[in-house]
């Protein structure tokens, strides 16, 4: 009986995730996401990341949605200040609207307008590693 109940629940959850991914698959994503280069003084297209959008209420962690030159979603990025990676702080329930993840990169960033302190980028790539080239320049 429990198994029979789980089937429609899992199906519904899966459908909702797919719908969320569809909503952000192409640039620009719907509100509350805003173009980062219009929120702070940064180049509109960041080599290695792409064109970024974020809901300002979620700063600094994000998610930031990154698009290539054709407006295709390529990654979801979380920016976690290094000073907040300690026993008294955690980042819980960060939304992940981008759908399937191919692979993940984690690296240090010295800071930039919007997140003006050293932090870690956690990048959920929605494309294969070979296709990261679409946002290289």
């Amino acid at each position: 009986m429990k198994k029979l109940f789980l089937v429609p629940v899992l199906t519904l959850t899966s459908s909702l995730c797919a719908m969320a991914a569809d909503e952000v698959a192409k640039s620009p994503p719907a509100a509350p996401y805003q173009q980062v280069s219009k929120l702070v003084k940064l180049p509109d297209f960041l080599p290695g990341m792409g064109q970024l959008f974020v809901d300002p209420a979620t700063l600094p962690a994000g998610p930031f949605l990154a698009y290539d030159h054709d407006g295709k979603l390529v990654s979801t990025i979380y920016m976690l200040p290094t000073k907040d990676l300690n026993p008294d702080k955690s980042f819980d329930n960060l939304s992940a609207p981008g759908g399937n993840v191919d692979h993940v990169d984690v690296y240090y960033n010295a800071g930039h307008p919007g997140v003006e302190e050293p932090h870690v980028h956690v990048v959920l790539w929605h494309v294969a590693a070979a296709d990261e080239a679409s946002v290289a320049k």
Partner: protein
Amino acid sequence: MMVARREVLGLWGGLVAVLSLSRRDVRAEEVVEIRMHGRSDGSHVWFDPIGVLIKPGQMVRWTNFNPGNSHTTTAYHPANFGRPLRIPESAKSWDSDYLLPDESFSVTFTEQGVYDYYCVPHEQAGMVGRIIVGELEAHGGWMEALAASSGLPDEALKAFPTVEEIMAKRIVRRV
């Protein structure tokens, strides 16, 4: 007195910057070029050179050569976000605000002394610089003034080249 101006440099400006940095003997009328750099993944950012010795009346021009980031050149001065005074008391403060790639900002220095500055979003990552204008007096009090100022991140304090190194080399690079 200090004069500041903001501009956008083209490719030729960048080439001039490279050429001028390679010259060791800096004349008063020459513009000293300081580049704002960063790795492509943003993991490291820096001013190049990080320390320079110039003459009174000489202009310094900062240019952002980092295609993936914005930078500022901002004097350590209470007028800038209440930061500690680390430029001569009689000198005027400056703050370029954010410079996008290829944008530049210039300041002409007339007062002798030590000038410390930083990049607003990258101070905690140690992106700072030091300019010495003129010849320093043996006991000019600059060391005491710098030692007394506090409130700087450790990474910034560790990054400054020493006055002695700048006086000896005229141009200090940490690339």
